[in-house]
């Protein structure tokens, strides 16, 4: 940095910086900043902006099952979606799903991170064990759990039977009353590694002196957690909530693998319903409309949440 800055000061003609607008001015750097971020801007355009443009166009068109545009239809796809009772069921379930999975994840990840922060024999191994599920693809995890909850030969029913807790086979996936909570549980389990890692990062960045001071002042463990750890961890909890809400809201594999949104559409969330509309029922137009609505919901949530968090300070 230093040497580059010196080089530019010596090498650049003196008039140039004043002609160029500020963001293109070489200033103290070797290259104009815009040039440096250009590759990532292009990449973002290709990966985010172009598909976004396509999906908005699909949502405003009559689209054949093969993705051919049969003409502009305005808001008709949105009207069809908003008149569809299954959409509202899925919307409501998406909110429950997101709140339950994110809430459960944060609640469980906190003690997990706190325990892993303590010195104990085998901590390194425990940390790896907590991290390992992250290496497993979501679809694979969902398939494993689907087998585990199988009524006839699943591990869960086997354990319950051996413990004498149930006599017959419980058909977990046959009804939404049992299937959806099971799916939420799996969602929480697979989200813990990521969240616990964020919390661990936060905990290890904390100064130890303040805890020593607190102990000297006679603060109990609970008080230390309440008045030191929690406030200091707040930014990490916030980022964990925002990122998890975005991931969980859009999470497709668990529900799709375990119940396909059924029986009788009773476990669909928006993303599985959009997929079924597009590729099961051959209606890409309304499915694109749902995707756009989902994007709007996540954007709105993120903005409101970040705004609320900014206010107190």
């Amino acid at each position, binding site marked *: 940095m230093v040497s580059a800055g010196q080089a530019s000061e010596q090498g650049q003609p003196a008039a140039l910086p004043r002609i160029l607008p500020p963001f293109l001015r070489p200033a103290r750097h070797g290259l104009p900043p815009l040039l440096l971020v250009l590759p990532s801007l292009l990449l973002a355009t290709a990966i985010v902006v172009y598909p976004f443009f396509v999906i908005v166009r699909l949502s405003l068109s009559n689209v054949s*099952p093969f993705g*051919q545009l049969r003409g502009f239809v305005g808001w008709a796809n949105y009207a069809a979606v908003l008149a569809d009772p299954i959409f509202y069921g899925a919307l409501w379930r998406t909110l429950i799903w997101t709140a339950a999975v994110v809430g459960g994840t944060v609640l469980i990840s906190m003690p997990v991170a706190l325990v892993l922060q303590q010195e104990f024999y085998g901590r390194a191994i425990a940390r790896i064990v907590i991290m390992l599920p992250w290496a497993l693809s979501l679809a694979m995890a969902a398939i494993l759990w689907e087998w585990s909850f199988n009524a006839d030969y699943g591990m869960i029913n086997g354990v319950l039977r051996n413990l004498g807790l149930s006599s017959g086979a419980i058909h977990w996936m*046959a009804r939404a009353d049992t299937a959806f909570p099971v799916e939420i549980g799996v969602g929480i389990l697979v989200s813990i590694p990521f969240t616990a890692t964020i919390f661990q990062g936060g905990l290890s960045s904390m100064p130890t002196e303040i805890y020593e001071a607190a102990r000297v002042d006679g603060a109990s463990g609970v008080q230390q957690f309440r008045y030191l750890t929690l406030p200091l961890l707040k930014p990490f909890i916030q980022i964990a909530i925002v990122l998890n809400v975005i991931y969980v809201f859009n999470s497709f594999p668990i529900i799709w693998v375990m119940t396909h949104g*059924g029986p*009788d559409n009773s476990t669909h969330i928006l*993303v599985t319903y959009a997929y079924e509309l*597009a590729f*099961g029922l*051959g209606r890409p137009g309304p*499915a694109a409309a749902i995707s756009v609505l989902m994007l709007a919901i996540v954007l709105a949530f993120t903005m409101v949440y970040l705004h609320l968090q900014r206010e107190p300070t």
Partner: protein
Amino acid sequence: MARQTTGFGRRAVLGGAAALPMLRPTWASAAETVRFVVAEYSNATGPYFEQMAQEFHQANPGIDVKIEVVNWNVLLQTLQTDISGGTAPDLSIIGTRWLLDFVKDGVAEPMDTYMTPDFKQRFVPIFLQPGSIGGKIYGLPIAASARAMFYNKAIMTRAGFPNGPTTWDDVVAAARKIKGTGSYGFGLQGKEIETDVYWYYALWSYGGELVNSQGKAAFDGPAGVQALTLYKMLVEQGLTESGVTSYNREDLQNLFKQGRLGMVITAPFLIGQIAKESPNLQYGIVPVPRGTTQSTYAVTDSIVMLKSSRVKQAAFKFLEFIFSKQPRVLFNKNEGFLPTTRADAEDPYFADDPRLKVFIDLMPHAHFAPVIAGWEDVAQDVINSLQSVYLGNTQPEAALKRAAGQADQVL
């Protein structure tokens, strides 16, 4: 939860990249390459078509056939993406019920101009019918199956029906005897693909129809209500497996293979699976139980030629080879399907097998799925209504009225 898939992002990216292959020069005159997408019926499907491509290439050195094996669950999606992206294959296997959408979108090529009268004569006529739309043949029947009832001999002998049930009353009586013995009586499918078909078996056996002559939903008629009332009663009285809505077709077949299920209605390919996986199972095959009439469901899968193909002559030449006797016999033996050409129907393997004969004899009573745009939608509505009845949430008549109302918006 670091992953998300809506499918749309992927589709859009593929669409963007799809323009590139079109720039590639064509060597049509030197060596033609025919791209053929095949659906994976079993582990034997890929090797079989590779072998056929090789044999064909030896006889026709100017034509290369490139086989792409795709899983059934993603086949339609793969084709949709490829077709909309401009990288469609030349030939593809598809479910015949998708054919109308292909024809409506103008992506399938009618094959009448390529077919000699002699070639057309090769097929069993009833199997050519589902692939014809508006008087033109768009799909050739690569696979055909009908449905019949498999019964476990040990269980059914104890229940007093050593030769299997012939009517629904027999099914109910047998299932009542089986109940409480640790086995299940009548296997009822409650989720995923063909859950609706499992109910059509009974509907057709009571003389019902799915759509009327005006192309509107008719499955909510008296036969449909009677069929669903029967199934509801079976579920409520514990005469089926428990937790019906968590069993798909494969789950039911697995129960049967394990010897835990008395009766199940399914396709002839279960014969091959039993031979491989539980060769000691004693079972018999009888027609789908009668209500007021005999009936079965027949399904074909079709090979279509894509309109965008630039090697149509070469592609059809390969079809002529695939639909000759030896390749057909080998395919049907591998996969456990019914013969679709006259030549392989006469092969002793099919003509003399008493089990396959049950299926072949049912063919005159066969119903096909209606060839109607949007049928896939209707099937999903029907499945949802059936599930809500099996779960005890809705009465049969109300559920069917609901599904028929939704269906008529599409039909």
